[in-house]
């Protein structure tokens, strides 16, 4: 791991890469976030006036409800992060021991939660577990008391977010391979010991990095706390922010002030994450990506499959089946009876007047562009952050988590403030491009966190070898690092694709006149309490994007075997 001086000299593209990363992040992420911060400080900045500065800060921050909401936000985020890790890490560890094909199938399955908007997931859980809900109709009991409680919210959110940790850590386990464990076993390590002493420390950077994103996402998540929490008076910062957006009076500066608190929390979480990652930094020498260790004995394999299956049923099957049933119900009050079920809602999506197909096409194309865009940007930015480490790149790194720490509504307002200014010669605002920009802004954190976590594991000696052979940074990225990062980049791309197909809040705020996405369509159906049509649209969107993901996974499998690695 020694750095050769001559290799150092060969890296001329450094400033260019750093400049490019900074430019992209500042334009895509920095501007809207800065706009929010400015709005919090200058309540009339929307009229381009700096009058009455700092006037809204104190009244908003001195609200007595705020302290409780902040504590609630923090405890919720900690609990969800811990539960997600508890679910995800064992799964990821076992995943590395699967036969390759089987592993890929489970990966595809665990991408599905991203396709379900958390808002729908919570509605589904409510429909299942509430008084006279589906479970009570079928099995005779309800779990309303559990659902409308702190553990209930934590469980629902963790079941939705754990795949982020799963994908990042399972990739980390794969990069480690089984050699280290084998060595430990040779020296008499017991399986539990091997897991906690060898594997866990080695995947810690990946675990910490994905936990950070889960933490931030929980802080920012609105749907679940709103739907479930409001039933037992559980208020978090985001629900307070949304109150300022929801009906009347609208208080954008106030919402921005509360968003500042979230930005601060994100900042501290990020600092803690940096400290921990530095402490537990590990790199794996000799990359081989051999994930096949000893095949599991059939009995163990069966047990492991059973565990994977149960989590899958809880996180995916139950919510989707519930959405599915609701999509087939003619009336909500009619309940689940034979004469209340038909294809009416689904067929209604495709009649002549309906804008459903157009909406699906728009969402899919935006999602593909967002996925490709974010992954390419993420690889460049990750390289800058991890390999060109400096004080400036730490700032960039922090910048990348910001969009996820602020509610989508606030980001949307930030984007309007940024791009709806008369001085821009051309602007994406009022064209569908603003949606792409919003998705890039909101989704960038996922691939950046996932790719940087993977890159941190790759030894620098790999790059150095290439530099000595005369390669430039671009060649190193393209021919050395990108192939090694491909699996995680693809997983990140699929996650971005999945989330983009159903992104709700910013789409509703930013969609230009006449442009419908899946989310705006569903929103309008729900707004008229046409629950069935809304659910039908979601179901179709989930199925369409799900099959695209499955297809992509299959292609990936083919490529992998084609490489012969």
């Amino acid at each position, binding site marked *: 791991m020694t750095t050769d001086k001559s290799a150092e000299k060969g890296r001329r593209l450094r400033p260019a890469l750093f400049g490019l990363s900074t430019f992209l992040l500042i334009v895509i992420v920095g501007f809207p976030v800065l706009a929010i911060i400015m709005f919090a400080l200058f309540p009339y900045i929307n009229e381009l006036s700096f009058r009455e500065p700092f006037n809204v800060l104190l009244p908003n921050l001195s609200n007595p409800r705020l302290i409780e909401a902040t504590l609630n936000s923090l405890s919720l985020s900690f609990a969800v992060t811990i539960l997600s890790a508890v679910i995800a890490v064992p799964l990821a560890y076992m995943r590395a021991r699967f036969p390759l094909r089987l592993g890929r199938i489970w990966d595809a399955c665990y991408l599905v939660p991203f396709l379900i908007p958390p808002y729908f997931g919570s509605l589904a859980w409510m429909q299942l577990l509430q008084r006279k809900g589906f479970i009570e109709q079928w099995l005779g009991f309800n779990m309303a008391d559990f659902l409308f409680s702190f553990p209930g919210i934590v469980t629902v959110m963790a079941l939705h977010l754990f795949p982020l940790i799963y994908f990042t850590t399972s990739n980390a386990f794969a990069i480690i391979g089984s050699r280290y464990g084998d060595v430990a076993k040779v020296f008499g390590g017991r399986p539990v010991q091997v897991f906690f002493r060898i594997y866990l420390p080695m995947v810690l950077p990946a675990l910490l990095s994905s936990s950070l994103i889960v933490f931030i996402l929980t802080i920012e998540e609105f749907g679940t706390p709103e739907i479930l929490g409001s039933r037992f008076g559980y208020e978090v910062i985001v629900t307070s922010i949304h109150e300022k957006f929801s*009906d009347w009076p609208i208080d954008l500066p106030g919402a921005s002030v509360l968003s500042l608190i979230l930005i601060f929390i994100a900042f501290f979480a990020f600092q803690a994450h940096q400290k921990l990652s530095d402490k537990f930094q590990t790199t794996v020498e000799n990359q081989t990506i051999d994930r096949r260790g000893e095949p599991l004995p059939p009995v163990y394999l069966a047990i492991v499959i059973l565990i994977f299956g149960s989590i899958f049923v809880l996180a995916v099957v139950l919510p989707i089946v519930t959405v599915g049933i609701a999509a087939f119900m003619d009336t*909500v009050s009619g309940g689940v009876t034979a004469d209340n079920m038909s294809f009416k809602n689904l067929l209604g999506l495709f009649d002549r007047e309906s804008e459903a197909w157009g909406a699906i096409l728009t969402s899919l194309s935006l999602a593909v562009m967002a996925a490709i865009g974010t992954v390419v940007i993420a690889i460049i930015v990750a390289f800058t952050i991890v390999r060109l480490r400096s004080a400036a790149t730490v700032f960039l790194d922090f910048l990348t988590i910001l969009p996820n720490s602020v509610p989508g509504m606030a980001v949307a307002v930030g984007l309007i403030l940024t791009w709806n200014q008369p001085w821009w010669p051309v602007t994406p605002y009022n064209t569908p491009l603003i949606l792409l920009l919003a998705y890039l802004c909101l989704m960038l954190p996922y691939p950046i966190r996932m790719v940087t976590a993977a890159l941190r594991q790759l030894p620098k000696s790999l790059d150095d070898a290439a530099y000595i052979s005369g390669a430039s940074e671009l060649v190193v990225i393209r021919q050395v690092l990108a192939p090694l990062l491909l699996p995680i980049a693809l997983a990140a791309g699929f996650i971005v694709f999945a989330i983009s197909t159903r992104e709700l809040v910013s789409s509703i705020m930013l969609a230009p006149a006449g442009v419908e996405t899946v989310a705006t369509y569903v929103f309008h159906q729900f707004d008229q309490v046409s629950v069935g049509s809304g659910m039908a649209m979601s179901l179709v969107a989930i199925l369409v994007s799900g099959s695209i993901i499955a297809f992509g996974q299959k292609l990936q499998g083919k490529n992998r075997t084609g490489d012969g690695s």
Partner: protein
Amino acid sequence: MKVIVAAAAATIALASVANAADLVVYSAGPKPLSGGLAKGFTKMTGIKVKLFQSNSGKVMARYQAEKSNPQVDVIISASWGHAITLNKSGDLLAYTSPNAAKIPASLKTKTYAAQGAAALAIAYNTKSGLPKPKQWSDLTKPVYKDQISMPDPAKAGSALTLVQGLASAQGDKAWKLFEALAKNGMIVPGDNRAALRPVLQGARGVVFGAVDYIALGLKKKGETLEVIHPTQGTVLAPRPIMIAKSSKNQAAAKKFVDYVLSKEGQTLVAKRLILPARTDVKALRPGWKELKIINYDYVKAAGEAEVTKAKFAQSVGK
């Protein structure tokens, strides 16, 4: 994938063609109504309408965020409070449409007028097996224990008008009513949809303060809902239509307001089961004559909204 990207590029190229002469309308739901009004207007005048359709909160958020470079000409909200706020800050263009003559005086000002109104009502699921409630206060009876759901005044402007109206008409009695409802196990789960959902799904039986046209529309679709307007009196949630002072298209904007308040426009409003603002257009639901409406000072109440919301939260123990 390439096909999708190409298709996307095409969609974007098509959609970016904007025309400065088009009328820009931001409207709160229901979507078929705003869509229908826009279509009818274009047919009559030839002026194209660019419609941003959302809910009141998002319409206003977008308007506020766009202030340095205003885009909108006409705003339709479902919350009278928005019109009051915008009027106070001098954001509205003074215009009295000749078609506003038949609108009751309480629902029009120099700068804004109601396009229609919802009345706040009791909606109950007939499958719940509960007796049919007649008055607001009926719901404090033990038979409705743990069966009531109410939209949160902090999240639904319509529920706020109900609280304001009842409080102004009944004073302390109204606050006692909310306390008693809370004691009777009433849930306050969020906006209008959140309050209605558990009642449709059977987890609860009655909505206290439902937006009547939404409930009536659901009933028409076959939901087992019954809508009751208490004879003790109920409150209107008028839906204001207004022209932004910043509008660069004021002539067309005025024409649009005229159209919405014309007999044709009001008939479209009536079709969505909303109470048309004009008393001479037939309502397809309990109309001006059937409803006993509590009138109160909207502007004064708007000024006290924060206090009212806090007081409500306190009385229901939120």
